[in-house]
């Protein structure tokens, strides 16, 4: 199977992270075309026409987000969210490490379209190599005249700065990211106002995910009709799915949206390890509800996954085999949210702490019937009661796992042990 890559071109072209290789493979041609043939407003219209949706998780239409910027003469910023830390998601890391010029080219086009003269990449603190790659690529782009004053004689000027975070999942939430970029603790802001109106340094700001911006060069090159030739009416185009867990070939796969989940797992990722069966799949990063084996024929587009009770989210697809305990899986994810809660809102801070505690004791065989009600009650007290989505995100897997695998949760408290043999669980404090 020979695939034409548009985003993960590094899979076909080695060393495309170097500017001369990138240029030799049509790199920065889309930028030339955008600056020469399009007015900024026409580019915004093109993005709207393409139906491109934000790839960070929310799936909000990108062109619409751009058009929320008020036209009031204040300076505008583009901020790229490269704070990738949602368990199961690792696409942005591959893009910035292996194909950084695609992002930079996309950022220049996006800044031109939205009227930003300054752009930032907020790179996760743990991505030391990724941030080095970005800084090197930005410096190369300056040398070749793609950044700085009067880019390619267009009259358009842009500076890009690479900013490294310092370890905090919450900074992937756009308003917390902006706080962090301003040198503060990464606590989410109250919305409204949204970043489009009052974002970085109080100015109108567009915050977009790395993968979203990487769609810009191929989109300008090939046009919105091409983009719409893939996927569905409401979910057009390409998506990178990160597949991990119990599969033979974990990795990033670039697919047309609406590719069946089964195709992704069996054909792209080589099926489940050891010839075992799928028990559950978390299709869109750890914050979304699980899907079950009988839902594998669901097409991977925003609407179909939603109809199946989950969300496409960031595209972080974690495959869980039939020998794995769903209480252990839930406990492990709750622990993540407990660690990463910023502590601002009581329901999230306390709720994730106690839910982890209860799930860990169930897994250790010390749970009681009452704990099952306690989990439901705590979930109910977190849901919709926090400033930002982190609290709700913590609930997706545990609530759905209790719905689809009630016997498993029940067995932990009636048999006072893990019926799956606690294969995954031995770092608990119990």
């Amino acid at each position, binding site marked *: 199977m020979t695939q034409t890559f548009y985003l993960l071109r590094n899979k076909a072209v080695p060393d495309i992270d170097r500017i001369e290789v990138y240029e030799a493979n049509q790199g920065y041609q889309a930028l030339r075309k955008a600056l020469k043939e399009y007015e900024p407003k026409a580019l915004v219209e093109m993005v709207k026409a393409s139906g491109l949706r934000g790839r960070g998780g929310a799936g909000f239409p990108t062109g619409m987000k751009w058009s929320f910027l008020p036209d009031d003469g204040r300076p505008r910023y583009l901020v790229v969210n490269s704070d*990738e*830390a*949602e*368990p*199961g*998601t*690792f696409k*942005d*890391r591959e893009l910035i490490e292996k194909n950084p010029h695609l992002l930079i080219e996309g950022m220049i086009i996006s800044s031109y379209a939205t009227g930003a003269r300054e752009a930032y990449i907020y790179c*996760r*603190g*743990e*991505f*030391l*190599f990724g941030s080095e790659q970005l800084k090197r690529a930005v410096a190369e782009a300056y040398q070749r005249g793609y950044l700085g004053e009067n880019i390619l004689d267009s009259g358009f000027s842009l500076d890009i*700065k690479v*900013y*490294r*975070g*310092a*370890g*905090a*999942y919450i900074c992937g939430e756009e308003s917390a990211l902006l706080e*962090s*970029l*301003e*040198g*503060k*603790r*990464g606590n989410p802001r109250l919305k409204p106002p949204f970043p489009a109106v009052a974002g970085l*340094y109080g100015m109108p700001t567009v915050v977009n995910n790395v993968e979203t911006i990487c769609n810009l060069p191929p989109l300008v090159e090939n046009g919105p009709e091409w983009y719409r030739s893939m996927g569905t009416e409401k979910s057009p185009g390409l998506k990178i799915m*990160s*597949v*991990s*867990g*119990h599969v033979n070939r*974990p*990795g*990033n796969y670039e697919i047309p949206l609406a590719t069946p989940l089964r195709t992704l797992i069996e054909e792209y990722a080589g099926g489940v390890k050891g010839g075992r069966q799928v028990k559950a799949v*978390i299709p869109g990063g*750890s914050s979304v509800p699980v899907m079950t084996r009988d839902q594998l024929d669901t097409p991977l587009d925003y609407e179909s996954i939603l109809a199946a009770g989950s969300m496409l989210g960031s595209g*972080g697809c*974690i495959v*869980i085999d039939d020998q*794995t305990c769903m209480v252990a*899986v839930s406990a*492990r*994810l709750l622990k*993540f949210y407990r*660690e*990463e809660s*910023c502590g601002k809102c009581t329901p999230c801070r306390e709720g994730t702490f106690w839910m982890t505690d209860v799930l860990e004791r169930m897994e250790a065989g010390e749970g009681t019937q009452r704990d099952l009600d306690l989990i439901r009650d705590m979930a109910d007290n977190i849901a919709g009661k926090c400033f930002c989505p982190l609290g709700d995100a913590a609930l997706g897997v545990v609530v759905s796992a209790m719905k689809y695998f009630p016997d498993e949760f029940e067995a932990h408290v009636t048999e006072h042990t893990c019926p799956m043999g606690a294969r*995954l*669980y*031995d*770092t608990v404090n119990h």
Partner: protein
Amino acid sequence: MKPEWELWAQEAKAEFPKANSALLPLLHRIQSEEHYLSEDTIRDVAVLLKLPVPYVESVASFYSLYYKNPVGKRIIHVCVGLSCALNGSDELMHHLEGKLGIQEGQTTPDGEVSLLEAECLAACNLAPVAQVNLRFVGPVTEDTADQLLTGEVKS
């Protein structure tokens, strides 16, 4: 305060002149030399950037990659996220704890190695994955785990 810190502060402020955006980059740069941020260092940074000491302390304590206490020259982060856990990260952690004779979260008595848990490192394709001084290593098997302890790493 080291004499070069003043220059570093100026460089950070020149690159990120608005709000307090110079703070995180300056903390990163100083910690990469000092290995951790002592109370004195926090005070110095506050002076350099003309910020209140409690503010700098509050920001530094928010982020997991700023260390308040001395850490080893070699910092091993073992990812314990779900995808890594499904692929044996707990066993890997136990193996390293046994080899080093310390628990997760501790530093060897000679100050050489710190063993820390990391939440998902966004490298689930390399599960179980680890970082040595923030450089990715993975997938780590029991056979290759010793490379985390002795293998050459870039700083």
